[in-house]
């Protein structure tokens, strides 16, 4: 009788042990899964949206004077940066960084477009933009339009731009503006945003991961 009890309790112990081992394995497995997922998110310096966002219709003009609309964002990845050509520090720095991104992407860059959209259409005509963007990279696209048309796009992306007086000359104003780089996917949807401080290495590494996950 005593023997049977001992055997039964040993059996229960064994079963309990097996369950415990399974639970531990399951726990470890899900922890690894979680860490993998969390690690994946942590590694991105970009803010990526769980679901890419639609961009509603906008009508602008590129530095060749051709229409630049939603359709222009289709078919390949687009990096969008909003600034103005009279900007001495942030805009040239960011465009130089984006040029480094293009260099580092090498052949991959042929499937990527880089778009500089002015928040200062009053001074930034297509001709002026042409000379400005091509200085940094001959493949870069400069975009302008009337203020309302630009706002259609900036509002959707949460881009802010404000004119600030500088000195006595009314023509020498500065612009405060959002300095992020916005990533639009080949479906023409707002996919992710990179906020400053920006480095080419960070953008290239993050973009590689984002593109891999998109496939």
């Amino acid at each position, binding site marked *: 009788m005593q023997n049977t009890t001992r055997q039964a309790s040993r059996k229960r112990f064994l079963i309990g042990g097996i369950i415990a081992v399974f639970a531990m394995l399951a726990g470890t497995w899900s922890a690894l899964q979680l860490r993998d997922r969390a690690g994946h998110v942590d590694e991105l310096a970009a803010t990526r949206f769980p679901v890419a966002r639609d961009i509603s219709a906008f009508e602008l003009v590129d530095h060749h004077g051709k229409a630049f609309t939603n359709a222009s964002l289709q078919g390949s990845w687009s990096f969008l940066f909003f600034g103005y050509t009279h900007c*001495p520090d942030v805009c040239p720095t960011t465009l130089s960084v984006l040029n480094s991104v293009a260099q580092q992407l090498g052949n991959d860059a042929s499937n990527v477009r880089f778009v500089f959209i002015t928040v200062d259409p009053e001074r930034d005509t297509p001709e002026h933009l042409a000379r400005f963007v091509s200085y940094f990279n001959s493949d870069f696209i400069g975009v302008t339009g009337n203020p309302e048309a630009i706002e259609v796009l900036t509002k959707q992306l949460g881009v802010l731009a404000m004119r600030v007086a500088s000195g006595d000359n009314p023509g020498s104003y500065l612009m405060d503006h959002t300095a992020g780089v916005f990533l639009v996917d080949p479906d023409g949807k707002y996919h992710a945003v990179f906020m400053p401080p920006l480095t080419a290495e960070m953008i290239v590494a993050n973009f590689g991961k984002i593109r891999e996950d998109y496939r």
Partner: protein
Amino acid sequence: MKLTAAMLCGCLFMVIAGSTLAAPTMDVIDGWVREAPPTSRVLAAYMRIINLTEGDLTVTGITSPDFEAADLHRTVVEDGVARMLPVPELTIPAGGSITLEPGGLHLMLFDPVRPLQQGDSVTLVLHRSDDICITLSVPVLRGTGAEHVHHQH
């Protein structure tokens, strides 16, 4: 505005690396002006200013014979929005240094008097509150700045 820096500057001149005054009070290293697209009327200059004295030194103004006007500015990014704030004066602490770099403190240079490109150099004059002027010649360089730092010691 065709005044030369010398005319604007009613103070003692000190030329970096060629000073005839006894002990140098300030050193400026890693100075450069970013080459800008040909249409640009505004350029930026960056550098590291080192205070070699045991007292604070204050830069109160910038002039340049190569530009119509020059200002000290700071780019600040708040909630992703970049703003440029005028910096009326810049104090370099005793024995310390201050770095002007892309995305931060910079000299804003308006209307170059001649086209500038990589390989050129420009003259900048830092005016101090102690009536000393620091005149320096810095190269015009292309790029983000990351590639220039620590190359010009």
